[in-house]
């Protein structure tokens, strides 16, 4: 899975993802930050494609770009205008320090790990993924879905107003 095109694509995607990630932090306008976030998600999806994991790539685009950012957009729209802009700079210095520390730790770990390398990557198809999810790992999969359902119900309960609850109590 290497070649000239793949290399070029990797570097382009890396640049896009990193620049967009930086844009999320730097951008003062909250909406611009969300748009940068979308770009970086798309870049990540591109990485998955390069790793021959098309299903994950498509899921990344559908879930992160199609659904999660839309939810973030809703959150932005429901934010009062005064607190909408990214003007909080008091935490810039501590944040920077923390980021540097984290980066150092990561670099250290990456450098010191004995990476297990295989010469030929196993070709995982979508069918294999399906078999794994609904065969071997069916219990964790189902537990995750129950968790998500619980989260859904909880979210609905949180947003109910007092009047609605009174109405339901009557019914």
């Amino acid at each position, binding site marked *: 899975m290497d070649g000239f095109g793949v290399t070029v694509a990797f570097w382009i995607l890396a640049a896009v993802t990193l620049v967009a990630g930086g844009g999320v932090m730097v951008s003062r306008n909250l909406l611009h930050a969300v748009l940068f976030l979308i770009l970086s998600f798309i870049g990540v999806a591109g990485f998955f494609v390069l790793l021959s994991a098309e299903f994950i790539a498509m899921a990344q685009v559908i879930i992160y770009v199609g659904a999660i950012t839309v939810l973030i957009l809703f959150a932005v729209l429901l934010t009062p205008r005064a607190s909408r802009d990214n003007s909080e700079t008091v935490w810039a210095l501590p944040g920077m320090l923390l980021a540097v520390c984290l980066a150092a730790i990561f670099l250290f770990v990456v450098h010191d790990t004995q990476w297990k390398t295989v010469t030929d990557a196993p070709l995982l198809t979508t069918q294999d993924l399906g078999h794994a999810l609904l065969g071997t790992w069916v219990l964790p999969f189902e537990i995750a879905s129950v968790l998500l359902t619980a989260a859904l119900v909880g979210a609905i309960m949180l*947003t109910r*107003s007092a009047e609605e609850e009174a109405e339901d109590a009557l019914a």
Partner: protein
Amino acid sequence: MTGVIKSEPFVINIGPQHPSTHGVFRIRATVDGEKVVDAEMVMGYLHRSMEKLAEERTYTQNIPFTDRTDYLSSMSNNLGYCLAAEKLAGIEVPARGDAIRVIMAELQRLASHCMAVGAFANDTGAWQTPVMWCFREREKILDIFEVTSGARLTCNYMRIGGVAFDLRPAFEPMVRKVLADLPPFIEEMEQLLTGNEIFVSRTRGIGVLSPELATNASLSGPMLRGSGIAWDLRKADPYCGYEQYDFDIPIGYQGDSYDRFIVRLEEMRQSVKIIQQALDGLPSGPFRTEVPLALRPQKGEAYARIESPRGELGYYLVSDEGPAPYRFHIRPPSFINLSALKEMTVGGTVADAIVVLGSIDIVVGEIDR
């Protein structure tokens, strides 16, 4: 954050340049999300002060002004004004003149309702199709007006004492053709719209007017009848010999936009019936009483009213024996029908406000005069 998410209401201007305000009318709506919490009407963009202008001109010269108030039903406006002037001066109209006036007023009602129904369907989002079909039928009626009076929109056809010209020979076959075409067309509109689930869910229960509010807010015409009040000046206070014709008053069920729509469609059927009868029994004889051009009615006042397509169109004239009316007041139906706009729109969404405005069937020329 506790409790519900708070939202700030903001003001949105529906109009004066908006596809659905039927002219330069403006609703200054305060919305909370999509919900209208307050609606304020802003009008006057088309104000020409006709009532003042009319005080400077003779009674006959004022007829063209009436064309330009409600420009979608100029014949009815001519008729209302002429009736008021005749009442003031005590002039009798010959039988043929009356019959021609009835035919013209009913044709005008058909044309105007075509426009109202089509534009209303357009407001609910039926993209142009109903309005185009309505235009097609309206064109035929406007052709009749053109043959008769020389003008299509501002006809200036009625005169004090009768009508301006006698009917042309081509008139009767043209009207017969329209009368044959219209009932199938109304059927078609009903198939397209009244049976349509989307249309029904958009209009039913929207802009509900209780009969009490409709009466108290001085509404008239299809707005009043949609609320279940059987009141039609052609029946209640017949003019031009409407008592000779057999027709019914359609009334609605619960006073929503849908009821006003079906009332208008049914009124078109009834108009066809009236024109049929008037055309069959069209008397011969003079079509106009001779009236001096510079009419000087005796001192007094007169209030004459007709059932225009939009409702009760009244003209209140005061004479001081001069050649021009001392006071010339129009009771514009679509202006007064707007009285209940706020009550009908508040609580609904912006889309509902548009539907309600469409169901009132306003003509801005008449609102602003």
